[in-house]
């Protein structure tokens, strides 16, 4: 059984892995975990996870860019948990420079590192949920717009978002480039 490490911004992204051990009220693996299950249904499990905010660079200005440092930290945490793959999403929040920073950090990774499926989530996980329902404005969602729309639909809680992913028809046509590449990477990262 392949072991995967999950990293995201919060509970909607990663379900129970965003919570502390003492508040284990969620049971699912969030949008990212459920999405990965859609492209690779069996042969793997989420073994551990952490939120981005737990990865803290205290050496800003003293070496490598903070995001590259965080990716190395993420890889070390996954290795500690005996994981062979990492699945993560990183909110862009309508700031293109965050997507560029992530792309640079991923490019700078050591080639022999863990398999990593990671993408800039534009603008946030609610945007991906709406995309999977077939809702995507021509110019994409703003963060506030996506969150407002999800609330209007009564989908602003983790289990509802996971259900949207589970009900997705599997068609990738029309999905954003970020989401599409994440699905491809996740399938590769979780393959035997």
């Amino acid at each position, binding site marked *: 059984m392949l072991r995967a490490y999950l990293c995201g911004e919060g509970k909607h992204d990663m379900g129970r892995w965003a919570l502390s051990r003492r508040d284990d009220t969620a049971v699912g693996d969030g949008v990212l975990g459920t999405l990965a299950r859609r492209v690779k249904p069996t042969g793997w499990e989420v073994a551990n996870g952490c939120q981005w905010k737990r*990865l*803290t660079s205290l050496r800003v200005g003293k070496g490598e860019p903070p995001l590259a440092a965080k990716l*190395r930290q993420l890889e070390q945490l996954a290795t500690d948990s005996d994981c062979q793959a990492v699945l993560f999403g990183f909110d862009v929040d309508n700031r293109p420079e965050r997507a560029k920073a992530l792309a640079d950090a991923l490019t700078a990774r050591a080639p022999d590192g863990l398999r990593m499926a990671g993408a800039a989530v534009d603008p946030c996980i609610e945007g991906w949920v709406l995309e999977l329902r077939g809702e995507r404005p021509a110019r994409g969602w703003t963060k506030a717009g996506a969150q407002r729309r999800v609330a209007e639909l009564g989908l602003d809680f983790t289990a509802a978002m996971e259900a949207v992913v589970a009900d997705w028809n599997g068609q990738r046509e029309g999905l954003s480039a970020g989401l599409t590449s994440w699905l491809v990477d996740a399938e590769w990262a979780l393959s035997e």
Partner: protein
Amino acid sequence: MPIIEQVTIRNFGPITNATVGLSRLHALIGPNDSGKSMTLRAISHFFDSWMHRPTPQRLNVTQPSLRLQFDTGQSAEWSCDGQLADRFEPGPSTDPKFIEAFDAGGSVLRFDPDSLRAETPLIEDQAPLWFSDIHGRGLGALIDAIQARSQRDRDALTAHVRSVFPLVDEFRLFTKEQRRSVGVRLTDGTEVPAEHMSEGLLYFLGFAVLRFLRPIHFVAIEEPENGLHPARIAEIVRVLRALSQTTQVLLTTHSPLVINELQPHEVTLVTRTAEHGTTFTRMDRTPSFANRTTAFSLGELWLAYADGVSEEALLNPARR
């Protein structure tokens, strides 16, 4: 100066029987209520007892004992029969001549801004320089005495403060009925009395004067990061590292920024369980330390793995 290399503490609050290794400059980190402060108190109690000083806080402990191992190879043991009184008794293995080395004494410092601001009596000529209490009372009188006794020290202290607080021009000491309080004059001529000084500046001054005071053997400092801007913390650790050349410095801290400025062998994780009481684990002896520090600095490692309760992830080996 012999350095305390190892301390074994028995029956001090949560510490039933535990040994901690120390360096010249050393920090204890760990969850609240794990025994960090009690460790400081146990060691400082030894110095208080040796110096015949009354214990600042009477501790409700029974049959405590303390064994200090020094880098010279010598050791000293103290124990107390019954409730802890004002004095430890040297154990039979302790060489009395060796103990004389500790006449320089030791102290605990836990600065608070109100004490640092307080007016205190002038210090007599030739009197040894140290704070009036563990909270930093007497700062104004100390700066007054440092300035009066040595022009070189006066200039060095002023230059140090200016380098970190560029708006400060010089000290301005305020006197009221033979009592001194600290103040500063700013570069624009404004005079700032103690009651209007920032807490960060007061804390910084508390640390900055240490190297000009009576040399002591050991100083224990609780949470030196208090009140300081994150960018100032590295400077405070530099001050303490310089001090550690003549005085052994033991810190407790909750700041990853403080331990980021230290070496792995200078940091010990303190944890506590109901079964074993307090235990000590040096950071560089935690599992997978070498691998983990390829990705994390010391402070980052603590933040990423610690949970504030058992620090289990930091103390348990990685799964693979």
